[in-house]
């Protein structure tokens, strides 16, 4: 379907470096990365905004690398929607001389908005119009640039469900960029993690969620428990020593200096010791209520974070200062190569530049 081969493009001081991606027909593919990683630049390059001198973009076996945007058969929804202010919704949607498609209009519930101008629309309505405009030309590929970034949290979930519905009903292939891991997890068949203009990891949501390849990916996907350690293979798995007193058992083979990560939802809190693998005694330092979850900071020699569903809290009856036992399944102790780089949330000047 969409194949990107060794795509390199320079934009000011920023560049996309050797991007290789393959998106299958009908797939919902998400590119996840922090602001400044080059997601918008990549999307706009695929849509045809920039001339490519190095690399190839192939859509349905046709080389579209430097084809005029109008000939690419790609629908594009920019982050700021870019509805033309001098045209009505109807004129915006049909600008490229196309007929209104009742199915799309009904699917997105925008029939009552057709005579309005963009200045009379809410953020959510603008977003639906931009989607309709991109879909009405029956694109082979739909590009979505942070479609929910400017929407309220409550509307975001509605949009996610709408996007899911659109994919199912219209059978369109989607390439979606976002910095929101939850969004990527909800919608995607596959996720690519992007960092500093390069792809860091590609995998299914489960693979990315459970087996981040780097500290950067782990942090981006919400892992708070990342520690440096020394791995020593033993039997089928390994020990990872965080310090002399503290070591974690994992089923992965690890040798030498490493990072280990444990998702906070995999850190189980219990009251009594059961003599299981990876059991640690600790003391609760902090408790924070986070909606459906409670977040615990527990001192076991190092600070480790645990997320416990709210309904389980009353059973344990926990408070700050309590001594507790922690248990972590060796399957949930994941290691990745040691490097000093971590997630850098510096502002994305280049993404901003590309929007002008």
């Amino acid at each position: 379907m969409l194949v990107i081969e060794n795509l390199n493009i320079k934009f000011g001081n920023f560049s996309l470096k050797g991007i290789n991606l393959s998106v299958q027909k009908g797939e919902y593919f998400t590119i996840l990365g922090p602001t400044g990683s080059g997601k918008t630049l990549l999307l706009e390059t695929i849509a045809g905004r920039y001339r490519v001198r190095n690399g190839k973009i192939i859509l349905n076996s046709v080389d579209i690398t430097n084809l005029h945007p109008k000939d690419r058969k790609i629908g594009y929804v920019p982050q700021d929607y870019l509805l033309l202010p001098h045209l009505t919704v109807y004129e915006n949607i049909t600008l490229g001389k196309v007929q209104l498609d009742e199915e799309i209009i009904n699917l997105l519930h925008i029939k009552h908005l057709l005579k309005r101008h963009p200045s009379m629309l809410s953020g959510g309505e603008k977003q639906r119009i931009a989607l309709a405009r991109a879909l009405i030309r029956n694109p082979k590929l739909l590009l979505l640039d942070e479609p929910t970034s400017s929407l309220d949290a409550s509307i975001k979930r509605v949009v996610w469900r709408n996007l899911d519905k659109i994919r199912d009903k219209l059978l369109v292939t989607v390439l979606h960029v976002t910095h929101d891991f939850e969004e990527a997890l909800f919608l995607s068949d596959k996720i690519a993690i992007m960092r500093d203009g390069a792809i860091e990891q590609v995998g299914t949501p489960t693979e990315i969620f459970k087996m981040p390849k780097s500290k950067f990916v782990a942090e981006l996907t919400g892992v708070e428990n990342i520690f440096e350690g020394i791995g020593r293979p033993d039997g089928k798995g390994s020990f990872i020593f965080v310090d002399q007193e503290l070591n974690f058992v994992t089923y992965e083979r690890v040798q030498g200096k490493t990072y280990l990560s444990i998702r906070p939802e995999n850190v189980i809190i219990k009251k009594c010791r059961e003599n299981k693998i990876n059991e640690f005694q600790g003391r609760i330092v902090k408790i924070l209520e986070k909606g459906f979850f409670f977040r615990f900071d527990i001192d076991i020699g190092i600070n480790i974070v645990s997320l416990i569903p709210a309904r389980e809290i009353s059973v344990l009856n926990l408070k700050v200062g309590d001594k507790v036992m922690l248990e972590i399944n060796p399957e949930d102790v994941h290691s990745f190569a040691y490097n000093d780089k971590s997630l850098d949330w510096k502002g994305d000047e280049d993404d901003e530049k590309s929007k002008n």
Partner: protein
Amino acid sequence: MRKIGLIAQIFLIIFILIVLTGVSSLFLRISPDILIKTFKSKEFLFSVKFSLATSSISLTLSLLFSISIAYVLSKRDFFGKRIVENIIDVPISLPPLVLGLSFLILFGGKFGSLLEQAGITFLFSPLGVIFAQFIIITPYVERNIEVVFSKISKRYEFIGKSMGLSDFEVFKKIILPLAKEGIFTGLITGWSRAIAEFGATLMIAGATRMRTETLPIAIFLGISSGDMDFAVSTGVLMVIISFSILLLVRGVFKRNVSY
């Protein structure tokens, strides 16, 4: 700070008084009877019609050039762009008389002879009036349009292309409609300059009664021949035109928006 404000207000009042006394002296100099008599005269009617015709043609030509030049300067970066911009501004920075003189020399020489052989005569002809107006007003019209073109995000053009529009369709359906207020302001500014153009017109087309007689030339000829009534009546009409244009431009600017 209060003292500075007071001094500034005094300067403001003095300047307003200077403008108003100058302009009102025109209206006080003439009686309604003479005004009506002049407005009915053949020569006056010719100069009004001639001014309207020449300014309309020069404005149309200028618009064609200005939109193209503004598009290139606002959307493209190229080597020597600053030099090109400075050259376009020459008619603004040079006194119109000097600019007119330079074209008088050009059209009076070999190049002019070549043009005359091809049937094109600029010197002392209505065509010269149109040319003089065109060269003077184009930088003003272009500047107004360039400002509004450069305010339109390039991403609108890109989204138009991604929706299946060709480059020309993007220009016609997106850029021009979004720039319409800037273009309108440019047209009004250009037209008011064309109607009032004198120096370059005098040098290139001369001041021939009932041939190259625009409104400003009519005032010049009236004063030269001692016909003050005719000159003042024409001046009154030009004041009315100028005020109307000023109000129109202000109205447009109030509604001006950037995208």
